[in-house]
């Protein structure tokens, strides 16, 4: 297991050095999107429209933060469960998305897309929203403001602690449950 400090946007070289189990401290800009924003982004693409952010080399963080209290850039901001975005993720990886951040298992289709388009899936600690929010230095809504907590935001993060869950070579970190009945 290795440890890396990475800066967004991510390159193919960044991604290909990573293996499941590696620790990453991520800095730079990441874009937030969850269920409703993904649906809208994919609908926009289907109509020949554009995504609200430059997708090549970018990182999407599956999060719907709590409102920012006075004097803070963001409220609590931990990851949401990723599988709900599985239906949208392969299209985005195909367009050049390099990483997603969330928690929980991904579908075989997403794992295949990571191999095909050389992407990675990072896990952040679920339920540690207060702690993780300390790594967010700035936050701004850039699209779909009407979606409230589900709006697309650009976050400036510093040393955001991540684990490589699925790498670009089919490797996976999650434990296989030992179910003996």
């Amino acid at each position, binding site marked *: 297991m290795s440890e890396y400090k990475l800066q967004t946007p991510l390159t193919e070289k960044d991604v290909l050095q990573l293996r499941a*189990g590696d620790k990453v401290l991520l800095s730079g800009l990441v874009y937030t999107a969850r*269920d*409703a924003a993904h*649906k809208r982004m994919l609908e926009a693409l289907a109509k020949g429209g554009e995504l609200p952010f430059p997708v090549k080399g970018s990182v999407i963080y599956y*999060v*719907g*933060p*709590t*409102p*920012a*209290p006075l004097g*803070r850039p963001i*409220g*609590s*901001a*931990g990851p*949401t*469960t990723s*599988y709900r975005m599985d239906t949208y993720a392969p299209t985005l990886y195909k367009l050049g998305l390099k990483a997603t951040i969330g*928690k*929980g*298992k991904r579908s075989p289709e997403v794992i295949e897309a990571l191999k095909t388009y050389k992407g990675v899936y990072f*896990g952040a*600690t*679920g*339920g*540690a*929203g*207060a*702690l993780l*929010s*300390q790594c967010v230095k700035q936050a701004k809504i850039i699209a779909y403001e009407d*979606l*409230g*907590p*589900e709006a697309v935001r650009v976050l400036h993060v510093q040393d955001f*602690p991540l*684990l490589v869950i699925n790498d670009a070579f089919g490797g996976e*970190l*999650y*434990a296989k*449950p*030992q*179910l003996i*009945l």
Partner: protein
Amino acid sequence: MRIISENQIIETVAELVQEANINLPEDVKQALVKALEEETNPVGKEILRQLVENYKLAEQTQLPLCQDTGLAIFFVELGQDVFIEGDLVEAINQGVRLGYEAGFLRKSVCDPFTRINTGDNTPAFIHLDLVKGDKLKIKFMAKGGGSENMSRATMLTPAQGWKGIKEFVLKRIAEAGPNPCPPIIVGIGIGGTFDYAPILAKKALFRPLTLEHWDSELAAKEKELLTAINELGIGPMGLGGKITCLGVKIEKSPCHIASLPLAVNIQCHSSRRKEVEI
């Protein structure tokens, strides 16, 4: 006859939802600290260290423990000698509205078809029990979507019995894996009806981790399941390890001679609950 005003309820609920979302109950904190001591997988240990740091930081900064500040779930015990001046259900909803706004909590309720957010985290989900006495007890839980999505209910046959119950619970938790944010707490409702078993399962989640079932037979079953779940090796956040589950809580009810209803309500490690009595 005791009179409780609508305003008293609104203020109490507004405070309750904010406190519960920031301060983890003592029993859950202790369980996380103990888990950190006992976990042997270094990655799992690191996760638990973050979770302990997270609850401390939430208290210091008054930030919510988790960004998913949940659906507002209430179990209300209304003494039959209480007269509510005004509308009890509306008062609880108003308390949720005010508390979620004032506490900078996320509004996570939407229409199931349009997915348009109601904007104020209402409606609250209220289970009302009429009890003896002149008190009003309000139990609140902020229930996150990630763990709720991993919960299941089924109708077993009487022949399947405890073995069938155990199999269903273990299969469900194995399949859920990392998704519901382990280490989890498992609420199990056994018996009743198709609709009542899940309510029992949710009710079970209100019992503190330190409190065993009063019925020693059920307490033994809770322990048996806890051991079996931890033997799955899912570990903190699904990364492997000894600590998959912090506690199993069972509630049972008589049921039809033809049925064995079963519900498994999974709760993430951030078990945010609090109760007050007026």
